[in-house]
């Protein structure tokens, strides 16, 4: 998604002179074109994420439109207090972009993973967490973040996922991706690129509805999602994030306000249960979030 992101920033920067791009010394091999296009509005603040967020808050206070970039864990966890105090509580429209959400950086290890990022940011006052599904979502996701009047976090996927999947409906905070051709026996709701493998086998579409959530937090879900769950009676939630504070809990809270009866199945990141590390694919396998495990799950649940 970095390529699409870089292309979008370059174009957006040309039409929005108030855009100030801050990076925590990352972007090699991806952001050189952005640096060239933005000139002095491209600011490498060095490896100082706390200061990057504070500076961005001050720039926003002065009417500028700052965007802070680093890999996802570095933009979220180190400067979390700056995000809370300097940005969120002031409702400053600072946009934070984290590359490689989830286990995206694989064997780089836990320091480079972000599997708790949505939990800590989605409860910040006024913060919108925006999660594109694939590369073709990135432009609309970035536009949504900059249209949103408050602070926003964009979680970019990185790693084993395909850049784009053809034929997807445009990015929305909540959207239907697949409509069952027969009455649904299973409703799948997912967040980010980990959902993509559920879209691949055409045979699955017969009795499975698939929805993508692109923004946390939310108060309500769409009527068509409620209708699907009501019809299927079985919900599978998929996310490359720990259970606490992720999509599953957000969804459960929203659905608890509906008069629905359904089974809830949740596939999510399991963290590091044995303190062993590996590729993104390996971590997904450990969490039963890999394509094979998900398809097996779906095959069972749609019976």
């Amino acid at each position, binding site marked *: 998604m970095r390529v699409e992101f870089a292309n979008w920033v370059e174009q957006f920067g040309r039409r929005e002179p108030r855009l100030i791009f801050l990076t925590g010394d990352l972007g090699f091999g991806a952001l050189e074109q952005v640096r060239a296009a933005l000139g002095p509005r491209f600011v490498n603040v060095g490896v100082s994420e706390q200061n990057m967020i504070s*500076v961005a808050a001050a720039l926003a206070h002065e009417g500028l439109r700052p965007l802070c970039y680093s890999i996802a864990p570095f933009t979220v966890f180190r400067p979390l207090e700056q995000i809370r105090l300097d940005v969120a509580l002031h*409702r400053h429209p600072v946009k934070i972009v984290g590359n490689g959400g989830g286990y995206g950086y694989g064997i780089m290890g836990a320091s480079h993973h972000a599997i708790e990022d949505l939990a800590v940011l989605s409860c910040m006052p006024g913060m919108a967490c925006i999660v594109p599904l694939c590369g073709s979502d990135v432009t609309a996701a970035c536009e949504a973040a900059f249209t949103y009047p408050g602070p926003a976090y964009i979680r970019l996927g990185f790693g084993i996922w395909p850049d784009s999947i053809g034929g997807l409906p445009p990015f929305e905070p909540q959207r239907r991706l697949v409509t069952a051709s027969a009455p649904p026996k299973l409703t799948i709701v997912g967040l980010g690129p980990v959902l993509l493998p559920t879209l691949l086998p055409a045979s699955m579409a017969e009795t499975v509805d698939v929805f993508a959530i692109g923004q946390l937090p939310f108060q309500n879900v769409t009527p068509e999602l409620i209708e699907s769950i009501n019809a299927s009676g079985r919900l599978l939630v998929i996310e490359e994030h720990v259970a606490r504070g992720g999509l599953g809990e957000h969804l459960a809270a929203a659905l608890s306000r509906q008069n629905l009866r359904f089974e809830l199945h949740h596939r999510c990141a399991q963290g590091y249960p044995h303190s062993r590390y590996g590729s993104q694919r390996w971590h997904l396998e450990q969490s039963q979030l890999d394509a094979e495990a998900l398809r097996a799950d779906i095959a069972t649940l749609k019976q």
Partner: protein
Amino acid sequence: MNGLPATRNLAEARIRCARQLLRMYKRANAGHIGTSLSCLEILVELCFGRMQRDDHLILSKGHAAAALYTVLSLSGRLPECDLNTFYQDNTLLAAHPPCGSGLRAIPFGTGSLGHGLGLAAGLAFSQRFTGRDFHVYAVLSDGDCNEGSTWEAALFAAHHRLDRLTVIIDANGLQGFGRTDEVQGLEPLVEKWRAFGFSVAEASNGNDFHSLTEAHAAVADGPKPRCIVARTTKGHGVSYMENRLEWHYLPMSDAQYEQAIVENSAAQESSNEPCA
């Protein structure tokens, strides 16, 4: 003093502010009195003299909020707020400067140390893009200088040669649970800030307006961000509080309050004596 008010006027303003903040702390039965008195002259010198209308002041040592509120209010910079609401329910004037208040004079909430310099540096940096013209003053504590984020911001300010930024360190030598030189030695502080790329001056008595004014003058020109290391006394002006760690926390008894007021009034009489 280049248009700045005479020292006597500043001294009088300081006494009025001290009386007001002592009253506020007594009514609130609250602590942080020593830290407010420590930086009071620094804030008075800025708000009653040095600062122009569009300048910004960031109190990074947010626990001295009462001093900030008092000085801003009595200098006419905080018309929206009633100091009588300090520490009360439903107030904007909490024990630390409020986040998201919308108050022009308090653009950012503080209270957790290490935030102020990054915010101040960002404000100064913004002028590169907006073309606005103002100066930014950031008042830091010893404890602020323990925080890594402060030094991140110092590197940033120096790298970008933010010459519209002045950092004032309220170096009173005491912090939360001990003397600074025992907790986490900061010295040589002047040399540290100079090594980080600041134009630095030391106010040998940071509770004295002459000393502060001279320090500001010494760093007034040049392309670098500025830093004044103000050697201050925690609890300055109240004999039983001076250099006492506990006055970071304690509220005043009735008798202690009366004594503080008396000592402050005596300071007023002293300031009214003819200059030598």
